[in-house]
């Protein structure tokens, strides 16, 4: 105690004797511990207090400038922190007691106190004041604390009446002063159904003594909007265990709850969309998910009907506790045009909307029904893409929820998410279709298509590969390698080729290779192998396509041969064409001569007949004409001469055009035939055709143009050769195979035999043909001596129906390019010019016989 500072005491006392006495008592009590200051008047005392440093006031209530309780109040008011001991006289002790009630620490009655008691009183007063102040500060601190907490804090008595609360609670109740709310119960603050629940909770806590800790519960704010709170209620007891009430702490967790709800909804919708296979399956689940997580009663999907261009409800969900048939009927009966009703407005604005008052919807059956169903709030959002709104989702609730922009934004987002889902589904469908298309494409290609990993294992192959490997399906090939299907040697060569692709990253494009198949047959394959890279560009395998090109290779070879053949045919054709031109020219020449000859002969005949008549007439008249007219005889003579002159002109014309202009001489037909055979010798030898000559001896000569008749025989022989070549050897009898010798001295079969026979004979009438139009008058007649030539071949003959046409110009049975089609026509013309004949007939033993006849020259 000695180490402590001395206690400074302000003694306010107007009686000097009392002051002295006090000083004496304090000295006795231990003067070193007290410093006493005395003032006589209250005003002086208050001044001194204002300057500070006073630890205790000893106050006499009766002062010259103040008296009684008032004195105390003035001092205490000015310095409430300074402890005051009231000095009272015996007669006003009752006033002194009042000062203690007002805040004085103690009082002493003058004259009844000793130093010891005074010292104890002073110490107690100071200590008590100190404790009192500490308590007051603590109380203030706590008060500040609870008033600044955002949680609602309140205390209630056993009857549930509020007797203490903090500022947050005061604000929640909508009051500004504590007095307005003290003594109130939950029934004064909440709707009855909520108040009932709260009151029951309170009573249970108070009477059971069991606290209620951190319970989430729904509540409503003053505006009647739903809020969520977290509540703790703790019972209060006195020392005896008697219930005094409860203390409650309630926290508004609406925001957190909303975030949770929205997160739940969002993740729920996301999950639904992720799991749903199609929009049709997703929509009911989305409606349900949103209703359940957001505590909405009804969810509806309105979609645009492209036929009517109106919104119709395609889907609806109601929470199990809610659902009216009337509402369901109404949604089916209602459709909205753009801008009409809530769905129509959302469609038109392409903007999520919140409607707290549904009265405006009463215009449609749907609106009427939702109002009747007790639904009070509605929110709707569009689903669509840049091209426009396709659907509107509508959610309805009986309770009023807290609405904010972020929820609308969230719902708008969900709308977009659903739209993305639709687009993704469409893209997936398209992708799926594309994949199927691709799959069926590669499966139907007649090419082996395969994907292999770096180890050469098949990952994907097409049907063609499966067929090639004789397995049921492409899946049976997966995981296997070439070593499972090919010979070791071949598989190794493939592997080496693929390693090169995998290491270099360079493709093999259209490499042709010859491989031996399982039957040992050589086959040609055409291969493409391309490295297969992952998304980061690393080579992870290869894609290959292999085609069996054996057939096209063979075809190529055949084509090459065919081309060569064609080239050769072309040359032959050119040659034939030239021959044709020459023959055509010849025919034209022959035809021209023949025609002029026939014309001239005809003209001669027709003109000479009348001339002959005139001549005969003149001859007759000249016998009978009168001798009286000396001129008559000379006139007739001149007429006769004129006729002779005309005859001469006609004869000259005939001479000019007649076939006799040919260089006809008397010739030996055998010699002509021998020469002609010589001309075709090359052709006969080339085709290994044997020639048999049976030429008659002592044949009469024939009057012919040698060169032209040689041409006839060359033509006939050449035809025979061609006929024998075109006849397939298989049809011939073995006797036509004749042993001939080649340089290799091996017998080879001949292609046929040409027989030429000549003889002379007399024609009988059955062999004579008559051409009624022929005015030349020169032809073979029965009884004529003729020289006959027969040319036989061993070909396959001429179809009977072709026989009448063989002399027609351009008629031919030979392949294009082999004959001109004019040969026999020319032959026939030449023979007609010689008054000869030609006939073709099939021989009974096969082949053709050509019979040519010339009139024997008798002169």
């Amino acid at each position, binding site marked *: 105690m000695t180490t402590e500072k001395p206690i400074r005491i302000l003694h306010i006392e107007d009686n000097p004797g009392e002051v002295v006495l006090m000083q004496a008592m304090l000295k006795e009590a231990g003067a070193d511990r007290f410093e006493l200051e005395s003032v006589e008047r209250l005003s002086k005392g208050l001044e001194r207090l204002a300057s500070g440093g006073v630890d205790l006031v000893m106050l006499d209530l009766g002062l010259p400038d103040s008296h009684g309780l008032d004195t105390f109040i003035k001092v205490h008011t000015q310095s409430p922190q300074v402890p005051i001991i009231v000095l009272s006289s015996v007669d006003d002790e009752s006033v002194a007691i009042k000062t203690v009630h007002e805040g004085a620490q103690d009082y002493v009655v003058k004259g009844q106190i000793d130093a010891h008691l005074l010292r104890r009183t002073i110490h107690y007063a100071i200590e008590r004041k100190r404790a009192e102040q500490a308590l007051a500060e603590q109380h203030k601190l706590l008060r500040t604390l609870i008033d600044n907490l955002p949680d609602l804090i309140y205390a209630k008595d056993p009857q549930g009446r509020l007797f203490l609360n903090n500022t947050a609670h005061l604000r929640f109740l909508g009051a500004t002063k504590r007095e307005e709310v003290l003594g109130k119960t939950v029934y004064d603050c909440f709707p009855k159904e909520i108040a009932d629940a709260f009151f029951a909770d309170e009573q249970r806590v108070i009477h059971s003594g069991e606290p209620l800790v951190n319970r989430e519960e729904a509540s409503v704010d003053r505006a009647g909007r739903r809020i969520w709170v977290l509540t703790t209620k703790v019972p209060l007891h006195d020392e005896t265990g008697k219930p005094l009430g409860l203390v409650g702490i309630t926290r508004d967790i609406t925001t957190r709850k909303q975030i949770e709800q929205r997160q739940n909804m969002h993740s729920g919708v996301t999950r639904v969309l992720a799991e749903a296979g199609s929009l049709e399956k997703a929509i009911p689940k989305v409606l349900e998910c949103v209703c359940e997580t957001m505590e909405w009663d009804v969810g509806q999907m309105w979609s645009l009907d492209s036929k009517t261009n109106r919104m119709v409800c395609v889907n609806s969900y109601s929470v199990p506790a809610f659902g009216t048939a009337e509402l369901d009927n109404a949604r089916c009966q209602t459709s909205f045009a753009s801008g009409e009703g809530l769905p129509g407005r959302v469609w038109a604005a392409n903007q999520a909307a919140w409607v707290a008052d549904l009265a405006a919807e009463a215009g449609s059956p749907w609106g009427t029904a939702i109002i009747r169903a007790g639904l009070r709030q509605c929110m709707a959002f569009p689903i669509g893409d840049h091209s426009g709104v396709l659907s509107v989702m509508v959610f309805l609730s009986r309770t009023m929820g807290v609405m904010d922009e972020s929820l609308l934004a969230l719902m708008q987002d969900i709308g977009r998410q659903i739209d993305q889902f639709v687009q993704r589904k469409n893209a997936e469908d398209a992708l799926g279709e594309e994949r199927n298309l691709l799959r069926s494409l590669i499966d139907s290609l007649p090419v082996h298509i395969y994907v292999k990993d770096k180890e050469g294992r098949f990952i994907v192959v097409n049907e063609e590969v499966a067929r090639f490997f004789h397995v049921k399906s492409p899946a049976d090939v997966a995981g296997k390698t070439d070593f499972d299907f090919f010979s070791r040697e071949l598989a190794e060569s493939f592997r080496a080729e693929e390693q090169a692709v995998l290491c270099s990253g360079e493709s093999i494009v259209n490499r042709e290779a010859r491989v031996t198949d399982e039957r040992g047959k050589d086959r040609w394959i055409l291969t493409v192998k391309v490295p297969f890279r992952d998304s980061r560009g690393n080579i992870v395998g290869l894609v290959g396509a292999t085609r069996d090109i054996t057939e096209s290779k063979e075809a190529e070879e055949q084509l090459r041969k065919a081309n060569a053949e064609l080239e050769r045919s072309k040359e032959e054709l050119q040659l034939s064409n030239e021959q044709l031109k020459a023959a055509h020219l010849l025919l034209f020449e022959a035809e021209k001569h023949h025609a002029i000859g026939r014309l001239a*002969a005809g003209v*001669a*005949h027709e*003109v*000479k*007949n*009348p*001339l*002959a*008549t005139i*001549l*005969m*007439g003149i*001859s*007759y008249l000249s*016998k*009978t004409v009168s001798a009286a007219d000396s001129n008559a005889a000379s006139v007739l003579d001149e007429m*006769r001469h004129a*006729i*002779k002159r005309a*005859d*001469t002109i*006609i*004869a000259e014309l*005939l001479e000019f055009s007649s076939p006799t202009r040919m260089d006809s001489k008397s010739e030996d037909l055998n010699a002509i035939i021998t020469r002609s055979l010589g001309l075709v010798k090359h052709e006969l030898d080339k085709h290994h055709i044997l020639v048999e000559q049976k030429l008659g001896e002592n044949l009469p000569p024939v009057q012919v143009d040698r060169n032209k008749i040689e041409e006839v025989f060359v033509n006939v022989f050449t035809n025979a050769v061609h006929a024998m070549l075109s006849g397939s050897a298989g049809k011939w009898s073995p006797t036509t195979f004749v042993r001939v010798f080649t340089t290799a001295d091996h017998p080879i079969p001949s292609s046929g035999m040409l027989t030429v026979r000549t003889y002379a004979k007399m024609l009988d*009438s059955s062999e004579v043909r*008559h051409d*009624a139009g022929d*005015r030349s*008058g020169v*032809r073979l*007649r*029965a*009884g*004529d001596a003729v020289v006959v030539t027969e040319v036989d071949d061993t070909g396959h003959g001429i179809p009977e129906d072709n026989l009448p046409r063989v002399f027609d110009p351009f008629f031919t049975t030979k392949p294009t390019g082999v004959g001109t089609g004019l040969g026999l026509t020319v032959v026939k013309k030449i023979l007609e010019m010689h008054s000869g004949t030609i006939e073709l007939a099939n021989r009974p033993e096969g082949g053709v016989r050509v019979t040519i006849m010339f009139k024997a020259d*008798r002169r």
Partner: protein
Amino acid sequence: MEKKRILVVDDDRSFSRMLKLNLESAGAYDIRIENAGARAVATAREFRPHLIFLDVIMPEVDGGDVAAQLKEDAELKEIPVVFLTALVSGQENVVGGLIRSGYRFIGKLASEKEILQCIEENIR
């Protein structure tokens, strides 16, 4: 003396009539005209000519055919036949007719004198 019978086979009616007039006026000839080649043989059988003048160019059955038919007829084959034809020019007319392929030919433009000569030379 019996007139020599001559059969003229010619489709030209004017010429054959002129020939008949001339020959009948020139001598003692009995001339018969046959304008159709097809009836020539029948007419010859009935008429029994000493000589037949035969036109070459005639429709249907021509002179060549008629000659062949006559040759094959036992009764008629000995009757001399002379082709009287416009095909033979005046220059080719020779006495007795041109012989070609065993037959005599005389041009239609032969003079009356030449024709008469030819008749006399060929009638046996």
